[in-house]
């Protein structure tokens, strides 16, 4: 589903490459943690998959897309197969919960009858049925992240990228979010989550890819955050 083959990425402003000869292969339906200290290349990794960046070297593919080489006009098609959640939720504060979720479908031209059918379904999936008409500021952090996840998942993406989704949440709420990510993963969606959260990684016992200084230093099938950290 996701393949990086000998991928390097150097930024003009930096002497050290952000990613240095990285090769990772993620199968369909896998749940993968991407860990490593700040500046280890996690964000660059995710940005390459979304074609926010192009690699300096190597090949990136997601689903059937040759991400690095595809023409710009096809990038929207790639992004429609990827859902994203972030540490800071990125909700639209002037729209209600259901409008926030519907927005993701409206802007890719989905017909109205599809939207009115699908949005309540996905809100139920993330446990927000009954809060469809609330504004984001009326919700707790955990609930806001659920809205963001509903928005990321509403178009049934093949891949869900989560960049520190629990970074702003307390441990209990984080646990709820992880349960939700697992549920999404069980629908067959490949989940790739970048995180610093030891306890989550340790409790989930999923595949762990660890980056350091732009290199993959560990790739465990059923890993923990790290021994002695």
């Amino acid at each position, binding site marked *: 589903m996701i393949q990086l083959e000998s991928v390097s990425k150097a930024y003009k402003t930096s002497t050290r490459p952000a990613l240095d000869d990285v090769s990772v292969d993620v199968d369909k339906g896998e749940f993968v943690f991407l860990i490593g200290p700040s500046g280890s290349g996690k964000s660059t990794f995710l940005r390459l998959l979304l074609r926010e960046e192009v690699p300096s070297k190597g090949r990136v593919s997601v689903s059937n897309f040759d991400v690095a080489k595809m023409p*710009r*006009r096809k990038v929207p*098609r790639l*992004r429609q*197969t990827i859902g994203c959640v972030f540490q800071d939720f990125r909700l*639209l504060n002037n729209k209600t919960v259901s409008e926030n979720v519907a*927005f*993701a479908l409206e*802007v890719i031209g989905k017909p109205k009858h599809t939207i009115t059918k699908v949005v309540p379904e996905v809100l139920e999936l993330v446990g927000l049925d009954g809060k469809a008409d609330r504004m984001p500021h009326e919700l707790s952090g955990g609930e806001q992240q659920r809205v963001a996840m509903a928005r990321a998942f509403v178009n049934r993406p093949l891949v869900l990228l989560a960049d520190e989704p629990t970074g702003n949440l307390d441990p209990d709420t984080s646990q709820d979010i992880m349960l939700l990510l697992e549920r999404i993963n069980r629908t067959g969606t490949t989940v790739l989550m970048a995180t610093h959260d030891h306890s989550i990684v340790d409790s989930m016992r999923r595949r762990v890819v660890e980056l350091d200084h732009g290199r993959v230093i560990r790739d465990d099938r059923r890993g923990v955050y790290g021994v002695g950290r």
Partner: protein
Amino acid sequence: MRASFVFSEVVTGLRRNVTMTIAMILTTAISLGMFGGGLLLVRTIDKMQASYLDDVEVTVYLTQDISANDQNCTAEPCSSIRSALENNQAVESVVFEDRNEAYERFQRIFEGQPELVELARPESLPASLHVKLFDPERSEVLVQEFGNQPGVANVDDQNKFLDRFFDLLNSGRDGTFIVAAIAALAAVLLIANTIQVSAYTRRTEVGIMRLVGATRWYTQLPFLLEAVVAGVIGAILGVVGLIGVKYIALDQIFEATGGAIPKIEMIDILFPVAPVLLGVSILISAITGYVTLRAYVRT
């Protein structure tokens, strides 16, 4: 593409940034109004030129001596001047006007000012040859040829006076276009700035749109349309302004010239000026919007 979505984004954008929107619309309206005024002036000048040149003639005034003694222009040198004019290739017709006819015409022209008519005597007016040319623009040659002939007092070229008059109107037109161009530059810069501000205030939306895979059209069309909508409103205001200026000021001013400057008709404003302004406005705002988005907004 869902039109209702794009449309609601446009309305939200214009309302969110309402002071800038108004500034953008007003400068556009002023610039287009000036431009339209210039176009109307061009049309007026064309109309005047056509109607005046039909009547323009060169008048060859004869000396006191001929005016007093040669009543029918049959003696020398009047008759030879006349036949020389008649045989000239450029000349369409020659009409002799003696003193008495000149006096009658004088009376007619100054009917409204009897004190002036009372002062004038037939003896104080010269006889003359009224020459009509095929091409009034070529009167200069005639003036040179006959100006110094014996028996000729002076040659009056109406075209020369008209030239000066039209020069004045033409520079008025040029001035209008220059001010219109400067206002247009201000309008273009305002449009560019408004789109940048608009894109900046909506960066979260645009960011999400890009992430969920909205096409370039979806992310950028609302901004582009914002500029175009403002341009269209500006054009409409510009046309309304022109119509207002016509009724409030120009009609009275032009009427005061006694028909020397023809009235601007409503139909002249509605066609072709109004559609031209609308077209120009849409084109310029769309191009400005497109270039700004290309240059400043990431996709």
